[in-house]
């Protein structure tokens, strides 16, 4: 298994060296960014069982925060009071993006404790819509529909010594790949630990979980904070890659895309969002190559989601895993569960 992973990673790292088509690289980068966002949503939706449909809000908040910090801004919060920030280095902007997104996650996490089930879905959707409308209307800060332009690209290094600039596609590809691997590892560590077990317990049977000491609020908040911060990171990378950000980044359709990726890939599994990301990152490109109109593409997505829920309710990854385990293994002999009956007293 280790060998397969190493080979796979080696392959991924080699791609920019031989892939000449920049468009393909672009598709891979965008797919990777969405995959990171999907992994973060999976932590909340899949492992903790929280129906959060406002996830794009964290993505967009990360994007906007990072952009604004690196561009600098000046707003009049009151007629005479101005809040201004001079432009900061991009890496600092990205860090701020992650922190602010995480903070919003903390707020949502605390809210989710009070407001459960279907109500929580609606609160999260509403939250995302409000954020979108703020981005659209607070023109002084966000430029509204005219978008934030000329967002600087990431530069890392020691000035005067060496510097890596993430302007071109290959550099961004490696950035997304490395961040993606880091996020995957972080999530895996989390779900395979006591914290992950607590989240799963809350999803499976909350009263039982609390009866053995699981603190509901604490782990819901932990899940949302990590999830939001990671989505914010994805958003920040996106902002400094495409270098233009407008309120459309908050559209509900992007949350839906992430949800489709997680659900069809397999919610509650580590590989699920990766598989889902690949399928729904590459599918639009395949369809576009086949000259299929975007509306038809979305109709296909909608139908696909319905079919997956019906026929592969746990997603592709568990279905493949079950099929693989079912082949060629003899059925377990029934274990002898009972000792001989004791004579009645």
């Amino acid at each position: 298994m280790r060998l397969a992973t190493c080979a796979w990673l080696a392959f991924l790292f080699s791609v920019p060296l031989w892939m000449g088509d920049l468009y393909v690289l672009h598709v891979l980068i965008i797919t990777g960014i969405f995959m990171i966002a999907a992994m973060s949503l999976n932590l909340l939706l899949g492992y903790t069982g929280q129906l959060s449909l406002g996830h794009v809000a964290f993505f967009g908040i990360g994007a906007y925060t990072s952009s604004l910090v690196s561009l600098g801004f000046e707003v009049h919060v009151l007629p005479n009071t101005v809040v201004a920030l001079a432009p900061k280095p991009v890496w600092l902007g990205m860090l701020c993006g992650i922190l602010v997104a995480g903070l919003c996650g903390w707020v949502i996490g605390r809210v989710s404790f009070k407001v459960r089930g279907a109500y929580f879905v609606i609160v999260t959707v509403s939250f995302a819509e409000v954020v979108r409308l703020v981005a659209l209307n607070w023109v002084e800060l966000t430029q509204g529909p005219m978008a934030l332009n000329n967002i600087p690209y990431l530069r890392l290094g020691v000035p005067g010594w060496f510097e890596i600039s993430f302007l071109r596609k290959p550099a961004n590809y490696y950035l997304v790949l490395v961040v993606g691997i880091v996020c995957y590892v972080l999530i895996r560590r989390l779900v395979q630990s006591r914290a992950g077990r607590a989240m799963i317990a809350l999803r499976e049977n909350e009263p039982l979980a609390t009866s053995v000491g699981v603190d509901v609020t604490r782990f819901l908040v932990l899940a949302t904070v990590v999830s939001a911060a990671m989505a914010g990171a994805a958003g920040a990378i996106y902002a400094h890659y495409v270098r233009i950000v407008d309120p459309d980044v908050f559209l509900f359709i992007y949350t839906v895309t992430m949800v489709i990726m997680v659900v069809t890939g397999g919610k509650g599994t580590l590989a699920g969002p990766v598989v889902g990301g690949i399928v729904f990152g590459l599918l639009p490109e395949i369809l576009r190559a086949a000259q299929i109109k975007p509306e038809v593409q979305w109709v296909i997505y909608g139908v696909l989601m319905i079919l997956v829920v019906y026929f592969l309710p746990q997603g592709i990854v568990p279905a493949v895993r079950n099929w693989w385990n079912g082949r060629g293994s003899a059925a377990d002999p029934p274990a002898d569960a009972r000792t001989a009956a004791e004579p009645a007293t």
Partner: protein
Amino acid sequence: MTAALTVGDLSIRFGGLLAVEAMSFEVRDGEVLSLIGPNGAGKTSAFNAITGYVEPAGGRIDYRGTSLIGRTPNQIAELGVVRTFQKTSVFTGLTVFDNVMIGLHLRSRQNPVAILLGLPSVAREERELRDAARETLQFLGLETRADQQASALPYGELRLLEVAVALAAKPKLLLLDEPVSGMNPSETTSFMKMLARIRGLGITVLLVEHDMKMVMGVSDRVICLNQGRIIASGAPAEIQRNPEVIKAYLGERYVRAHG
């Protein structure tokens, strides 16, 4: 004997109904105390109030001097009071082993930062937890089932798994809600032996049960409830003969018919 749990004047309301009315009793350290009574007598309601799932309308609940009222179930579990549920309650989608691992939640204190950084202390604690899970399964005779899905277990073992999960949380006071309901006589007898071993670990047990053989066989004391009030309390043999108890279970006419 010191009192582990003291319940004073407890009242619980459901809508307009008074499910439990001015109930007072105490559970002594190290004993096995059984609550009996017909359905709807308020036994599970009392459990729910003691463990924080329901807020009482009035009264006191103290565990070793600390009030339990107003605390969340997980806080009460941290104090050492753990319960099982009347309807079979396990993590059905997980394996038997993973079920017990969740029960061990309070046994470790790995914090999220350490987990994310992948510090070696986290891996070490995980190994310790896995050992503890195996021990717990062995104690209940479930070690051969470790890798099976909880949903695949036969009924009797499912109920054992519930106890395993509760025991993993290292309770000092264990509340068992009808642990042998639905079990056949031989399973019940095995359970009674296991209860003796649990008691041998120094755990105080508060039991709700209908199975009289079990109640008489394991209890130090028995309390009988009817319609939210305590109608009798004492040693098992006394309770068995108590006319109020018989009337509560079998009705007025039976008592008059059989003297």
